[in-house]
């Protein structure tokens, strides 16, 4: 018997003939931060909505906090927090009122909710906006309010669907810090994202989804070791000359990825590969050597770049 918080087996979601999630398996352990990484349309949100008990599963099995999302939806939803991909804040209410009414939806009394509102506004640094109408907030502030809102019922499990999309770099870092603190407090996190750095920073374990399926699973560092070389040499050539240059690159690296605007050479040692290329008379207009990242794992597994 597994003590995982979320257990999905053969989980499938179809919309008519279209399969959005195609028999995926995964388990989320208590206290971990679990990521879903994948390009547009991979099926991440569809999976989140099934876990959040707002979208009935088509087939397979799913258990969340030991509950069945189909038959025990209200109880399940009372114990989780959800940050949807699209903000669904109540634009007719103020910041504080949004938190109040959302807490009421959970059946909490006003006297319980009131101190939580202050705590949460502190937590997401929106104290100054307490009585502001929501439609006056910036996109990043709305996102932070949505996160505060998802915590009003002190959830055991928090589902975040692209929590930082649309945030500036600084706001993203603040958010990561907050999520990290929640994790320290024992809240289990499920996060979807397009951003490699976010996945690497935030997630203990993640799955890479592509076209409705899970194509890889593991800790970010393990995935990189498993699916990529230690280093990568990126080369950019003058427009129109990429093809002739590629012809001369044969055998230089373990693996090569050709992107529309550059070529990636996968190698244990980028610097020595660079010298070798130079010796062959290859002259890129720009080149970068770096360590392999999840982006490279993704590229290898799906043949496509994640961030277009």
């Amino acid at each position, binding site marked *: 018997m597994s003590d995982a918080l979320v257990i999905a087996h053969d989980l499938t979601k179809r919309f008519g003939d279209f399969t959005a999630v195609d028999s995926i398996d995964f388990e989320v352990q208590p206290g971990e931060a679990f990521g879903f990484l994948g390009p547009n349309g991979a099926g991440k949100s569809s999976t989140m909505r099934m876990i959040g008990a*707002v979208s009935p599963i088509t087939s397979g099995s799913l258990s969340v906090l030991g509950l069945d999302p189909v038959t025990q939806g209200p109880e399940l939803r*009372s114990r989780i927090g959800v940050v*949807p991909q699209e903000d669904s804040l109540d634009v007719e209410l103020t910041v504080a009122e949004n938190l109040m*009414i*959302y807490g*009421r939806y959970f059946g909490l009394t006003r006297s319980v909710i009131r101190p939580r509102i202050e705590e949460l506004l502190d937590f997401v640094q929106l104290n100054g906006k307490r009585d502001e109408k929501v439609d006056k907030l910036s996109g990043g502030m709305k996102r932070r309010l949505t996160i505060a809102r998802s915590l009003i*019922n002190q959830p055991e499990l928090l589902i975040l669907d692209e929590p930082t999309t649309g945030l500036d770099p600084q706001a993203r870092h603040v958010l990561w810090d907050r999520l990290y603190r929640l994790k320290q407090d024992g809240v289990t996190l499920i996060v979807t994202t397009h951003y490699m750095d976010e996945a690497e920073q935030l997630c203990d374990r993640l799955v890479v989804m592509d076209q409705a399926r899970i194509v890889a699973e593991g800790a970010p560092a393990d995935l990189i070791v498993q699916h990529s070389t230690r280093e990568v040499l990126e080369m950019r050539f003058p427009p129109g000359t990429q093809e002739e240059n590629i012809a001369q690159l044969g055998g230089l690296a373990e693996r090569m990825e050709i992107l529309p605007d550059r070529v990636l050479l996968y190698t244990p040692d980028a610097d020595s590969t660079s010298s070798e290329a130079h010796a062959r008379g290859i002259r890129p207009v720009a080149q970068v050597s770096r360590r392999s990242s999840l982006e490279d794992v993704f590229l290898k597994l799906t043949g496509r770049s994640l961030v277009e």
Partner: protein
Amino acid sequence: MTSMLLRVIPLPFRSAQRAKYVFERNVMVYRRAWMIIFSGVFEPLFYLFSIGIGLGGYIGDVTGPGGELVSYTAFVAPALLASSAMNGAVFESTMNIFFKMKYQKTYDAMLSTPIGVPDIAVGEISWSLVRGALYAASFMVVMAGLGYVESWWGLMAIPAAVLIGFAFGAVGMACATFMRSWQDFDYVTVVTLPLFLFSATFYPLSVYPPAVQQLTRFSPLYHSVELVRAFTFGVFDWSLVGHIAVLVGMGAVGTAVVGKRLHRLLLT
């Protein structure tokens, strides 16, 4: 005991114990926008002063439902109350549901909490009933103050207006779940305006030839008008049961459709 009690409550209401929070949300929103509610009070009063008292003073007396001579104002006032209950309920419910569902994602937010679709349907419909009751009550106060209520039964016009609001509100909400864009709202007027003009609102049904009379009986507003008129004049017969049945039926079917449609649209 409680479970016994639960079993006799109709299904949508039994599974809607959290409807009160949906209602509470509306109270929160309109606490600040009370002017909007207030303006709803005026619509029936405008009707009353222009058509009832203005036109009524010009026309004089007509034959009332009991066969006796009554002032035209007293004759037309219950019809105006019924019509504005219909208009209020229809516009409120269609706009409301459409806006919240399509643009504001209010229901998506609610559904990620323990709140379910029946709670939303019941909560929203109850809210529009309470508003309707408020409008009807203020109308009756003015009418009584001006001496146009002929019977104590007139008090019953308030719950009657609430029933009318329920019937049209539920059907309006159901229609709203099928609307794709704001253009579709034009159809609402296409339906409600003829109802307003041809439902024995401004003259007794007897002015029509028999065939048209039969046709008028298909108008839900006709049944609403007759219901309110029966109460304000204190003149009753068995047709009253029929009027009530039509409205209860509309409300029940509308509520059921709203529940089904919201389920389909929101829980995909």
